[in-house]
């Protein structure tokens, strides 16, 4: 299994797309840092004792959390695309090219092959997602002015990063399942459409929470059950901004965080969902001809 994991890792790293992804990520982080820098400079800080009151402080906090939320939201998006695009071809691509023949005729089981692919992809993408998460947070806290700095505890950061890392776990497991049965193109289309539907479902749920419309909230919940990607992101923002316990913090959250707080059961569900998809991927691959 580890031999397959190592090969999977080497394959991604040796391909040009990985280098392009790394370069584009650096470009994205540089742009984000530039944006943060100029926002800090353009918006004048509140002078102590100027009597401008709590409203301006609240507004600044809102702007600051929105900027961080936007950075994390886009990070989530590019990490998801990378997870989808690398997983949907992991098996189908090798079957189509017959490269898989010489691997599978070795004394390894199909279960080991799928788990090896999963482990290789997961190690790389979880590392990427965590690096991206802390990169965004560090840029936000480091390049921003004092008024932009948000007060994060270590527990908040570790909890949010851990939940954020769940996203590639779910996406890779689902992508691998599709990859055992579909062509790369079909699996990619299905995954990306589901990803888009999950995020639309997430926004509908947020609007439902604001408007107090149960039907809208239920649509979001159903989408979270079908493809629990957006809810993982929302849960991460709740943990990061600690909006679970503070009504004021919820008001600060805005579009890129969560107005309603996804329950802790969601984490368990996402883990079970990923494990279940992986099990189906193994089962499906063991049954098929290559």
């Amino acid at each position, binding site marked *: 299994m580890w*031999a397959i994991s190592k090969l999977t890792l080497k394959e991604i790293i040796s*391909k040009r797309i990985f280098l392009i992804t790394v370069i584009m990520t650096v470009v994205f982080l540089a742009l984000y840092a530039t944006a943060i820098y100029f926002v800090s400079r353009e918006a004048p800080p509140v002078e102590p004792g100027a009597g401008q009151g709590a409203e301006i402080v609240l507004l600044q906090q809102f702007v600051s959390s929105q900027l961080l939320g936007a950075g994390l939201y886009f990070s989530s998006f590019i990490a998801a695309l990378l997870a989808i695009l690398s997983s949907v071809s992991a098996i189908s691509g090798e079957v189509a*090219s017959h*490269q898989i*023949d*010489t691997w599978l005729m*070795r004394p390894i*089981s199909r279960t080991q092959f799928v788990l090896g692919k999963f482990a290789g992809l997961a190690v790389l993408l979880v590392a990427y997602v965590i690096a991206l998460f802390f990169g965004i947070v560090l840029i936000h806290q480091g390049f921003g002015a004092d008024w932009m700095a948000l007060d994060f505890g270590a527990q908040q950061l570790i909890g949010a990063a851990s939940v954020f890392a769940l996203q590639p776990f779910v996406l890779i497991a689902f992508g691998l399942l599709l990859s055992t049965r579909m062509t790369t193109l079909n699996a990619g289309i299905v995954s990306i459409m589901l990803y888009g539907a999950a995020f639309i479902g997430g926004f509908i749920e947020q609007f439902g929470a604001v408007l107090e419309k149960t039907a809208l909230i239920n649509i979001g919940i159903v989408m979270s059950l079908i493809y629990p990607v957006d809810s993982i992101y929302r849960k991460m923002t709740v943990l990061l901004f600690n909006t679970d316990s503070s009504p004021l913090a919820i008001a600060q959250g805005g579009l890129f965080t969560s107005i309603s707080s996804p329950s802790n059961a969601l984490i368990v569900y996402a883990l079970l969902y990923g494990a279940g998809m992986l099990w189906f991927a193994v089962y499906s691959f063991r*049954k098929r001809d*290559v």
Partner: protein
Amino acid sequence: MNVIETDALTKTYNGKGGISDVSLSIGEGTIYGFLGPNGSGKSTFVRTMLGLLKPTSGRGFILGEPIGTIRSREQVGYLPELFRYPDWLTGRQLLESHAELCRIPVRERRKRIDEVVDLVGMTGRDGGRISGFSKGMSQRIGLACAILNDPKVVFLDEPTSALDPIGRKDVRDLMLYLRDRGKTVFLNSHLLHEVESVCDHVSIVHEGDMIVQGLWRDLMQIEAQVEVVTDHPADVPWPPCVTHVRKIKQEGPRMRWLVQFERESDVPEMIHGLSSARIAVYEVKPIIPHLEDVFLHWVNRKKESAYVGDQ
């Protein structure tokens, strides 16, 4: 013990194509030819033996282990017909990855890789990226992969398809080298001369059916033919064992004939018959049938029997 054994092994795709009802037993130290035209089901058979395809029915064993199990693949090597290897690896990295999958101990890997690289004539070229390899080089590195784990059984599927004449000879020599070391080589090929030059036992497959199998020299014994040079009487009293005679050409006072029998063992009887009739015989030369003739003979015989069966 039979190294490869199948019992009515069948693999079809929704009831069509593939290969049906293959029963064979192959012993140790043999080069076994699986001969048939493109699309006759040869690769399907090998891929089923290696667990890449699930059999529709029947059973198969490699070294006594049921096909599809991990144990059945432990001492097996394989060169696929469509040899595609990750082009982002170098030849040596490919071999290192396979060595790891074959659980070759780390301290032995380098030595073993050097050995197989040398055996397939890739010394000094294995460090290049596979993306830069020619088809011939890819096939050679594929051969190195196939024999890397010092397997007892090697399946080679059209192993010379991308090679030049020198490369083809190298592969033939490699097969003979493996056989001499007690290995069993299962050679899939549509090239009659390739099979003839190295194989002891042969199966002929056609349109998904195994038509005949046996020793190659036995399969070659189709309607024996000889050329006979006699003096030139008006009429030669050919003995009854002769099934067909044709004049080839007159050579001065002599005549060259093409004479056909049902069996090679009829030749002495013919010579005796001619001598008894006081016909001078100057030359009797056996004619080895063309490989194509042998192949078509067995295919046509199968078709004829199928036709009679249909009636």
